[in-house]
């Protein structure tokens, strides 16, 4: 793959303003490195999810939210006026907290959903991409004999991996994950975390987590958010062993959550 010190994605002064009155997140400038996992941690309401959702223009759907600043993917601002959000979201995928397979579609059709969108119909191509994505999501062996079963017939952990496979099928450059394991049991959480560690070779990952241990387990870099500001950023090892900012120290020692 490529150099993991290369900056893949970057924000400059990114902020999200709600109802013209208060900032969900304010003036954040961060770099995301190629094939690395960056985690966002912080107490509830600190703005980490708001920030994440600005990275694939999900706030476009909320009329009350205004985004300021820039988000550069490979040096191009995704918020530039001539850029279409629909195109951006193919390059920057997202997995949500609740597993959301399309319940009426089969497992196969779920994974292929993104491909159908752009008009890919050829069976051979679809078969290949579906298998590849399911393998990358560590789900292939479990479902390969029942690809035509409905997406809702899987267990919670499997559904989340299906959602990941679906996101991977369109081959995004960056994968955003919003607390992907918070609704899963410990076993499924473990397998998804293992998955993340393997996936970063293929895609740059940014993950929001409310669980500090998870950040330590899966991420290379960590950013700590507090009441709308990005307070500290650094290599995960360093941030957790030697937090520089007093608020970071307080949070890591469990003073608040």
């Amino acid at each position, binding site marked *: 793959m490529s150099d993991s010190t290369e900056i893949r994605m970057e924000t400059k002064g990114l902020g999200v303003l709600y109802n013209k009155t208060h900032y969900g997140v304010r003036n954040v400038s961060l770099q995301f490195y190629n094939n690395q996992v960056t985690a966002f941690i912080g107490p509830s309401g600190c703005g980490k999810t708001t920030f994440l959702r600005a990275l694939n223009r999900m706030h476009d759907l909320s009329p009350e939210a205004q985004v300021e600043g820039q988000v550069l993917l490979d040096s191009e601002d995704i918020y530039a006026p001539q850029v*279409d959000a*629909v195109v951006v979201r193919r390059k920057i995928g997202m997995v949500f907290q609740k597993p959301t397979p399309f319940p009426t579609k089969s497992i196969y059709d779920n994974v292929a959903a993104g491909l159908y969108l*752009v*008009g890919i119909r050829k069976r051979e191509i679809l078969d290949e991409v579906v298998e590849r994505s399911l393998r990358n999501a560590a789900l292939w062996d479990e479902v390969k004999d029942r690809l035509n079963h409905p997406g809702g017939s899987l267990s919670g952990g499997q559904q989340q991996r299906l959602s990941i496979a679906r996101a991977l099928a369109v081959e995004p450059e960056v994968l955003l994950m919003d607390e992907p394991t918070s609704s899963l049991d410990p076993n499924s959480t473990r397998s998804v975390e293992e998955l993340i560690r393997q996936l970063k070779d293929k895609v740059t990952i940014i993950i929001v987590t409310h669980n500090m241990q998870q950040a330590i387990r899966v991420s290379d870099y960590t950013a700590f958010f507090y009441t709308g500001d990005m307070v500290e950023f650094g290599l995960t090892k360093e941030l957790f062993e030697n937090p520089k900012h007093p608020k970071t120290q307080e949070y890591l020692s469990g003073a608040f959550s």
Partner: protein
Amino acid sequence: MNLQLRYFRGNLLQWGTVFLTALVVVPLLIIILFIVVNGFSALNLDFFTQELGSPARAIQGTPTGLVASIVGTIIIDTIGLAIALPFGLATGILMSEFPEHPFASIARILVSTLNGMPAVLMGLMAYALVVKNTGGFSAFSGAVALSFIMIPIIARTTESVLRITPWVLREVGLSLGLPRWRVTFSLVIPAARAGIITGILIAFARAAGEAAPLLLTSFGNNYLTLDISEPMDSLPQRLYSLAISPYKQWHVLGWGGAIILLLFVIITFFIGKMVNKQLEKNSARLINIKQEEKGNE
């Protein structure tokens, strides 16, 4: 499929839905327009004060009107409501306040079944129960038929309004030692008062527009009467007869009756919507208060 094509297709289908919406909305506006225009010109003093009488009157040009129908509607509908209220409210209270009782779930199924029943069948049942046993068509049997229609509606709306009242109310009442019936009547129902009244209004408006059951029970009367043991006229039932009659003058009266019914429906519709909006605001306020309290804990 490239992006442009995808957007084009989406836009096309979106305009399709606009077209379909117009297809539905335009006829409604046409209907209202025609009724208002034609109906308005039919309304005059005679309309409100004269009886219908025989066709000969209309053909000869003697003044005729629908006073019998208007008065009859008021009488029959009011009696019907009086009959329906206790039963409808009781059933609504049963479904909401006694959900653990087996009757409650049975009642719920039956209420929703009855709400989907054709009104004409209610008329047949009232005919069999009342008309046949009292020797003839009467205003009273019509009132009974209308009550059959109103009871399920009142039951359903009462239940849904009572369910929405906060549980806290009952908790407070019971912990004060109040018996259940007191809790219901003095605390819960007053809190739900507006919604219950709206529900009653809706049921009344709905029954007021039904012609089929009345054609089979109160039958109709070309002359004004206040005797509820006799056949009595009412607007919807009369409208049917006027519309299918061959007399031009009666058609004109029909338009007049139509605009009155339409106005009645529109007014109750808007009152209902306004009360609902107010109720939503109130319950939203209550939810906010509850959330604040929870936050302060």
